[in-house]
């Protein structure tokens, strides 16, 4: 996906040759690793028990919880390109709680909690995922997705503020 070469640069609107581009170039290694982690979290080669469409839809929720329209659109586009079923596409709807699907309900509950208020998470929240049938490996995959997207959104938020500096 050539258009996703650097999601943060595209979203922040870092103009080549600008003062901000020059500063960010000083940390080009970090920005490249950030993009590689994005791809590893959203479109991994081995996706385990979380499909690419589910990952994109959950990331879309995280963007909404962070009130970040640009990331919402980015993850929506990723979701569309994954060709989601209508059930999976619904995950991106912030008012949808998973309905009668126990696994989906647990995924959504956990993502919303950890995106918005990680301080409130306890052992019980991990047990709820296990009781809903998630393997420990999938729990770690889910956790990395929420954690990484929360990071990426903040890097972009900070860079948008830097763009405003003289």
């Amino acid at each position, binding site marked *: 996906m050539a258009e996703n070469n650097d999601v943060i640069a595209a979203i922040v609107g870092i103009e080549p040759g600008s003062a901000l581009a020059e500063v960010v170039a000083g940390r080009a290694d970090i920005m490249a690793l950030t993009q590689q982690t994005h791809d590893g979290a959203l479109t991994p080669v081995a996706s385990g028990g979380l499909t690419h469409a589910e990952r994109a839809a959950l990331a879309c929720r995280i963007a909404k919880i962070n009130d970040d329209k640009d990331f919402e659109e980015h993850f929506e586009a990723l979701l569309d390109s994954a060709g989601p079923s209508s059930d999976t596409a619904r995950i991106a709807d912030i008012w949808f709680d998973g309905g009668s699907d126990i696994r989906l309900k647990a995924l959504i509950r956990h993502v919303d909690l950890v995106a*918005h208020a990680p301080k409130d998470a306890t*052992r019980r929240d991990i047990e709820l995922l296990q009781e809903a049938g998630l393997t420990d490996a999938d729990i770690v995959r889910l956790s990395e997705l929420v954690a990484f997207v929360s990071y990426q959104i*903040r890097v972009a938020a900070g860079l948008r503020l830097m763009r405003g500096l003289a």
Partner: protein
Amino acid sequence: MSKVVHEFTTAIPEWKPYVKPLDLAEASAAQLEALKITPSNTKVSDYVLVLAHDVETLTHRSPLFNGVMYNKGGLSRAEREIGAVGASIVNRCIYCAAVHASRYNQLAKDETVIAAIFADGVDAEIEPRLKAILDFSVKLSKCPSDADASDMQALVDAGLGKDEILDLILSSSLFGWANRLMHTLGEPIAE
């Protein structure tokens, strides 16, 4: 008796995962590569063994983490630790706060700043430059981020260069990531 730590401290607790760490005997070649396991290096923390369940993020996460916290130039290592501590306070990650607060104390050879932050949070009476760094980190760590143009201007007014501001954004954001793993996948235990 071991017990779960709920208050901020600079005494580094032990981290106990809620999920099973990867069993090295069952690790794939990609997992061993990401863990940098060699015959002479088989010591890996439970935390990293937990993260090894998701090898496609761990592979990039380790060098990214080291770069953000330790690469040359830009913001001082001690001030990057304040970015980490600010996020860890918002997200109440007792373990991350302990590790990075004690690292700040070692680097700065001073314990008063962390003592003030642990006692009074963002109201801590610390020197203006550190105060601007802490405030920005705390605000960026909220969900949604609460940092605005005036917080950015406060960093400039406190004397931070653009390269330093970028490093602060990266270290604060990085702990929005780390806290969401450490605090949700396990708990800090006092010996």
